[in-house]
């Protein structure tokens, strides 16, 4: 507390400096929130790639589905007086994760499983097809216009730290994504089923010979990935307050970039890549140019891939997960 007071006192004293510091901390907290969201989406790409060596191009659209489902649950469900509270959003995130997991399961069953033994390229075409189908279904249901969350559907609580004002939402989003990632990490590394997931990522035939139902594990990967992506969709919705049926494209592309930056197939890599991407983007928007933030983000990707072609943590060929 004393440190905090002294810091805010110093900041108040040097007003010019305060502006700089304020920009930095605002962008930093924004970067945490966005980075957590990218990380959650990136996990879906990396987990599916880890077991199938396939980029699930429809993953961005599962994320969009999550955003629209979140909108529906928040706006039309009788959340009544509790609407706009952190509790209501948490409940909606959980609901959406369940529905998104189901969508992920259906997607794998319809678009990928029939092609499991065919040429890899066929699965890619099927993935792109699935992406178009999901995107257009959302458009048919919700319409092509931008959907704006009604005021009061998201908490607008401001917290003061070191004399600076931050929207509580940022910390909530960051906290929620960290919790989900910790949960996933625990599941993968400490449970029997998680060990089976790692085994399947290493050697599918050997896993079959151990009695692991590989198809079931693949379904599970799609379900977990879709649930995390769906949660990220709700988060983007309540953070920015508006969603469109095409939003999955750019978020998907960036999260895919994050997964590659961290090392595709590597779970901690996707988390690191997502956080880094969110931070770079947020800082670039403030200090360089908001219009150029995407260009700068991809420039960072290119530099990282030139220096470390397998990503920051490496595509751990043996431990693809």
């Amino acid at each position, binding site marked *: 507390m004393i440190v905090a007071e002294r810091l805010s006192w110093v900041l108040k004293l040097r007003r010019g400096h305060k502006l700089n510091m304020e920009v930095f901390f605002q962008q930093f907290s924004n970067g945490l929130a966005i980075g957590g969201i990218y990380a959650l989406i990136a996990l879906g790409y990396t987990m599916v790639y880890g077991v199938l060596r396939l980029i699930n191009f429809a993953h961005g659209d599962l994320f969009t589905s999550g955003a629209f489902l979140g909108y529906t649950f928040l706006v039309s469900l009788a959340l009544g007086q509790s609407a706009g509270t952190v509790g209501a959003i948490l409940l909606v995130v959980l609901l959406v994760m369940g529905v998104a997991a189901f969508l992920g399961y259906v997607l794998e069953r319809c678009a990928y499983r029939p092609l499991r033994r065919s040429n890899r390229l066929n699965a890619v075409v099927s993935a792109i097809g699935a992406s178009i189908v999901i995107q257009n279904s959302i458009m048919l249901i919700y319409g092509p216009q931008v959907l704006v969350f009604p005021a009061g559907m998201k908490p607008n609580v401001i917290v003061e730290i070191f004399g600076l004002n931050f929207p509580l939402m940022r910390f909530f989003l960051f906290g929620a994504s960290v919790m989900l990632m910790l949960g996933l990490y625990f599941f993968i590394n400490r449970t029997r089923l998680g060990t089976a997931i790692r*085994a399947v990522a*290493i*050697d599918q*035939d050997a896993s*079959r*010979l*151990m009695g692991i*139902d590989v198809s079931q594990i693949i379904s599970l990967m799609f379900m977990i990935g879709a649930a995390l992506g769906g949660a990220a969709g709700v988060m983007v919705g309540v953070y920015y307050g508006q969603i469109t049926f095409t939003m999955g494209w750019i978020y998907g592309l960036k999260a895919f970039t994050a997964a590659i930056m961290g090392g595709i197939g590597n779970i901690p890599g996707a988390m690191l890549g997502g956080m880094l991407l969110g931070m770079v983007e947020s800082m670039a928007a403030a200090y360089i140019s908001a219009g150029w933030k995407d260009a700068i983000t991809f420039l960072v990707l290119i530099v990282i891939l030139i220096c470390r072609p397998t990503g920051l943590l490496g595509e751990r060929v043996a431990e693809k997960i």
Partner: protein
Amino acid sequence: MLLRIKNLRVAYGNVEALHGVDIEVREGEIVAILGANGAGKSTTLRAISGLHRPKSGEILFAGQPLHSLPSHEIVMRGVVQAPEGRRVFATLTVGENLEMGAFVCKDKKTVASRLKKVLDLFPRLGERREQLAGTLSGGEQQMLAIGRALMSGPRLLLLDEPSLGLAPIMIKPIFSTIKAINQAGVTVLLVEQSAFVALKVAHRAYVLDVGKVVMSGSGANLLKDPEVQKTYLGGGRK
């Protein structure tokens, strides 16, 4: 008859690898399948484990057909394979590898008692339980592959080239372990290129050549057979 393979045909695409193979294994036996590279030995084991669907023919285990079941259900029935090249999960620990071997068994007590048996059989694995499987020596990895297979509590253990790539000094202990496993009540069907060591432990053996059984008999008789000696033991002994 524990395992009966009748007129098994397996094809890779248009190329037929097994042209009607008949093999029988009785409860309690060690049976070896011998033959040169490409004779179809591994293909036979892969078909039993459900990794390849046969084109025609039957695989019956304790009278029940296996050839239409997915691999994990075959393991549940009590047929497990330690594959060629060991195929341990390199970035999982030794303990996790063994845990995966018992994946079909949901009962924790049974898993714990099997683990104890496997670690008694291979004390080295106990010492290295926290180590990543990829850091083990070839012989230790083979022990792990066999131990991992035993964790499912099999009635029939399939071993694909257990001596492959091992230091000569490791081959004997591995085969005496196979004998011990068999004496503990597990039937063993093993595929080997080094015919000499295999015939010494096997009760009976089949010789495969280009996808067909060309010879069969007791291990002792095949060891004495001039044809076998000329074709397989000359190269197998080195």
